């Protein structure tokens, strides 16, 4: 067993030696052929990395919402059948009922949204103002980096206080600390009481371009995009304990709301419930498809590179027909000849793959620095790229190698 292994290893080393010699002899040709594989591997690795980057971004965007949660919102006009009467509703009372009656709910974050113009001194900023309750901080993991978050008292008194995201602070105040300053929100003065810890951006969406006010103040002072009853909500985040089955909670919320609105069985719900889990799954699917399409397109260039390898291996076999005949005369079996050329093709491709990988790593670094978009090339991708290159070599070197091994010894020897 050991001696057989030693023989195999010895032959492999021998074939490697022949391959390296052959590649060195035709150095320029080897380099040019390798280039095709390099470009192919470069494209495939980058495609995988960009796809992974999209995945990372989307997951980051979902995670930045907070941890486990269900998001409840009324069915918008255009989907609910048009008539106002059929339009979904969601009220503060619904939110409270969910918090009290559903097991596993940690906190609720009822919200109103409004696009607003902020003005302070000579500067202004357009942003989205969200009317929230203190529960928002808990559900979305929002933290006041300086100053404080909004309190129950702020909500009770509809206080004109505001917590700003980092981007808004920078637009309005630059480096200056704005705590205690007055900001006019759609011409209504609010006092800045806190600054949110930066969350960064995902998929070009700036998580810090936001301003939070008490939900009561938002209802009184802003025209929100859902001008319904005094108790209506635009959206409700329901924070859920870790380890709780999100699907079960979703069903329970749905049953509760259907009961409250007396929706009959078989009738569509006037609200939509989504969980972070669903977002994750859907996003993973979408980004997975995105990645697959990218890789498929990139693979075409690798295919072209592989055809180049096949071409050059056919040339190599033709050039060395006499050598093949000689080796056969000296006792080489068909498998020896075949393996010799397979190793040569695999080595050629692996060198090309390594070069392509290095180029891709460089390009990814430049891309990340310039575009603020993650392009992760993991160790797995790197090893995979090299192994895949070897497979390309074996695949496209296979036919020329088999052809070489099928030569008749005497005809090969007679070739000039």
């Amino acid at each position, binding site marked *: 067993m050991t001696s057989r292994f*030693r*023989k195999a290893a*010895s*032959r492999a*080393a*021998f074939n490697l030696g022949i391959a390296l*010699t052959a590649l060195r*002899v035709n150095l320029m040709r080897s380099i040019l052929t390798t280039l095709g594989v390099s470009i192919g591997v470069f494209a495939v690795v980058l495609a995988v990395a960009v796809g992974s980057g999209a995945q990372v971004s989307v997951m980051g965007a979902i995670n930045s919402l907070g941890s486990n949660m269900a998001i409840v919102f009324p069915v918008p006009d255009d989907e609910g059948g048009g008539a106002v009467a059929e339009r979904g509703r969601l009220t503060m009372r619904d939110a409270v009922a969910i918090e009290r009656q559903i097991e596993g709910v940690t906190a609720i974050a009822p919200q109103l949204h409004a696009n607003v113009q902020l003005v302070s001194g000579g500067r202004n900023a357009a942003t989205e103002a969200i009317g929230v309750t203190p529960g928002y901080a808990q559900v979305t993991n929002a933290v006041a980096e300086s100053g404080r978050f909004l309190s129950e008292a702020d909500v009770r008194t509809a206080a004109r206080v505001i917590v700003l995201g980092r981007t808004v602070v920078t637009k309005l105040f630059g480096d200056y600390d704005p705590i205690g300053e007055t900001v006019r929100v759609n011409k209504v003065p609010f006092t800045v009481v806190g600054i949110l810890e930066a969350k960064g951006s995902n998929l070009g969406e700036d998580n810090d371009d936001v301003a939070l006010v008490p939900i009561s103040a938002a209802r009184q002072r802003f025209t929100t995009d859902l001008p319904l009853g005094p108790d209506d909500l635009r959206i409700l985040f329901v924070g859920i304990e870790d380890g709780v089955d999100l699907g079960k909670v979703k069903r329970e919320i749905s049953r509760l709301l259907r009961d409250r609105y007396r929706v009959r069985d078989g009738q569509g719900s006037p609200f939509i419930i989504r969980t972070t889990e669903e977002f994750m799954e859907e996003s993973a699917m979408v980004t997975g498809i995105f990645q697959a399409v990218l890789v498929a397109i990139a693979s075409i260039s690798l295919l072209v590179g592989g055809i180049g390898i096949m071409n050059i291996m056919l040339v190599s076999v033709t050039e060395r027909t*006499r*050598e093949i005949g*000689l*080796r*056969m*005369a*000296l*006792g*080489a*079996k*068909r*498998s*020896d000849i075949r393996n010799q050329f397979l190793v040569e093709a695999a080595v050629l491709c692996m060198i090309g793959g390594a070069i392509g990988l290095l180029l891709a790593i460089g390009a990814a670094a430049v891309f990340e620095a310039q575009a603020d978009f993650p392009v992760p090339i993991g160790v797995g991708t790197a090893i995979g790229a090299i192994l895949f290159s070897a497979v390309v070599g074996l695949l496209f070197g296979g036919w020329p190698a088999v052809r070489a091994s099928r030569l*008749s*010894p*005497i005809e090969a*020897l007679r070739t000039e």
Partner: protein
Amino acid sequence: MTVPLVETLSLVKEYAVGGGTVHAIAGVSLAIARGEFVAIMGASGSGKSTFMNMIGCLDIPSSGDVRIDGIATSAMNSDALAELRNSKIGFVFQQFNLLPRTTALDNVAVPLIYAGVGRAERQERARAKLEAMGLGERLDHSPAKLSGGQQQRVAIARALVTEPLILLADEPTGALDSQTSEDIMHLFQTLNEAGNTIILVTHEREIADHASRRIMFRDGKVIEDAPVTGRRVVRP
């Protein structure tokens, strides 16, 4: 009665050429015993090279059989033939056929790789054969740095490194000058005296006269098979 080392039985090799059939070998039966030094002679196209290729198991007969050391080869597959060539037959070619850019030592070691011999032993056996050929000083030379005679001696070392039963030499002096040819023939005679069976193909009478038996081919048939009278024995 001892089994002949090489035996051909009604050996035929035909080629289809332009609608007709050419008989390169038209039914040859002969036997060569262990320890013989045979010269196969004939004009170009006489079939002598085809005959040699078939007893070397490089070419497949159209009909008939070649027996090496009593073993029929006609039913063997390509792998079995490769093993047979590797273990029992050593080839020497007119154009030496050494691998370029490969040292003399590595060239000689090639058959041992296919025999599955480990690296250390390969090196040792190849070195020993090269030293026996008087090339101990040139182990690391590539063929391009060796003279024609030296290259042919590397090739002979390669042919002998697996200790084969038969040494087949196809016009081994065809690319060498007359003095070097004499040296090589002397080497063959020495090897033959040491017990090696040698079969040599040549079209030169002078070269053939170094052998102990001469077989003449014409039109794919043996027309003469006799001991060499007035054998040339080289004594340097």
